[in-house]
């Protein structure tokens, strides 16, 4: 019951005050536009990179809100005082982040696919897999970084720094490569590239399972 309540509450707050999601949508759109104008090479290659760069940057805005909103009136304490375990709180917040990132990805990908004139008939399955795995890894890593920075004074800077430091090579670049394979109709190649983000997501999940009690402790 606590898990569903936390997921529901996070999503309700996301839509009750949609500025962050709208800003993320605009940032994603801006990155796509800038790269479309700046890089006139093979549209599939630049399209794959542009979609993931847009998702990575705009997704950071969404992830920043995850634990940050629990500081506005000390509501992190409300969660910590509940019957939900620290692990339960973490997974619920990661699940809510995954849903929010999914909405953002639907928008960014639709715009990117249209902008770069990519044939989805050829690449749909590989693209869906890349998005599912990449967003899972991003949601888990972003939520863990958010939890790590929950007690930090400079939490607004810490989360993006952790995301870039860890996520650049383990999530962003492999997902670009997987999406590129998908755009060329090479579904198996796409799946092979997704080993890295999948492993990253699972590794962070395992790390969180072991450390989240300490991470959220005062």
């Amino acid at each position, binding site marked *: *019951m*606590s898990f*569903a*309540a*936390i997921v529901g*509450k996070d999503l*309700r*707050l996301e839509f*009750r*005050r949609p500025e962050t999601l709208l800003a993320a949508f605009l940032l994603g759109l801006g990155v796509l536009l800038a790269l479309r104008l700046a890089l006139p090479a093979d549209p599939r290659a630049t399209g794959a990179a542009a979609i993931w760069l847009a998702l990575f940057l705009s997704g950071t805005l969404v992830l920043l809100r995850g634990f940050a*909103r629990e500081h*506005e*009136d*000390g*509501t992190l*304490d*409300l*969660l*910590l*005082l*509940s*019957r*939900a*375990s620290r692990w339960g709180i973490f997974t619920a917040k990661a699940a809510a982040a995954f849903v929010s990132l999914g909405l953002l990805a639907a928008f960014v990908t639709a715009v990117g696919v249209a902008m770069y004139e990519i044939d989805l008939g050829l690449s749909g399955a590989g693209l869906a897999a890349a998005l599912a795995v990449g967003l899972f890894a991003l949601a888990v890593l972003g939520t863990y970084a958010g939890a790590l920075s929950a007690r930090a004074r400079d939490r607004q800077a810490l989360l993006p720094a952790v995301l870039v430091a860890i996520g650049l090579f383990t999530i962003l670049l492999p997902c670009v490569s997987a999406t590129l394979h998908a755009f060329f109709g090479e579904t198996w190649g796409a799946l092979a590239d997704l080993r890295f983000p999948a492993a990253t997501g699972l590794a962070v999940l395992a790390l969180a399972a072991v450390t989240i009690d300490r991470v959220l*402790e*005062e």
Partner: protein
Amino acid sequence: MIRASGLTKRFGARVALDAVSLEVQAGQAVAVIGPNGSGKTTLLRVLSTLGRPDSGSATVTGADLLREPERVRASTAVVLHHFMVYDDLTLEENLRFAAALRGLRLSDATVAERLRVFGLEARAHERAATLSRGNRQRFAITRAFLGAPRVLLLDEPLSGLDEEGRALAERAFTDFTARGGTILATAHRDRDAAFCARSLRLDRGALAAG
């Protein structure tokens, strides 16, 4: 009941709690009186499992603070300085969410009844952001009674309340102890702890019977 023995908590070089020992029986309300920075809030945070003591031990309703924190949390409700409300949720949504965190599903009638106790029923569908400090405090106290806790840890619970709010809160706390509940409350002065039968003095983290 609450039993603490030698609770010590440091923040760097500063000793926030210095070997605090106390006992509060079931059906009793005890106040911890002290000036700002004396360690009152830290004591409540440690007893509620939000903070971990550096040394010492404590049990709340028989559950050990360090070994059985889930049992402590299940039997305890806390009112802190910050109100722990989501500004963008309505009062009703905040109450339902807090109830869900305690494993409860509230009917519409129960929500209305709970909010009525502290005169908040007319505000049920307003966002918490619109509430005054006093009404936030009323809401925080309302929420504390969800799920029939056996222990209330109250950090300056009357602060910010008007006369009516103070009277409602004091009556609720008195009824709670009359039913066998245990209260440990903090206050700056005795006047704000009139609902407590006994008071202790805390200064620079150390406790002395008052």
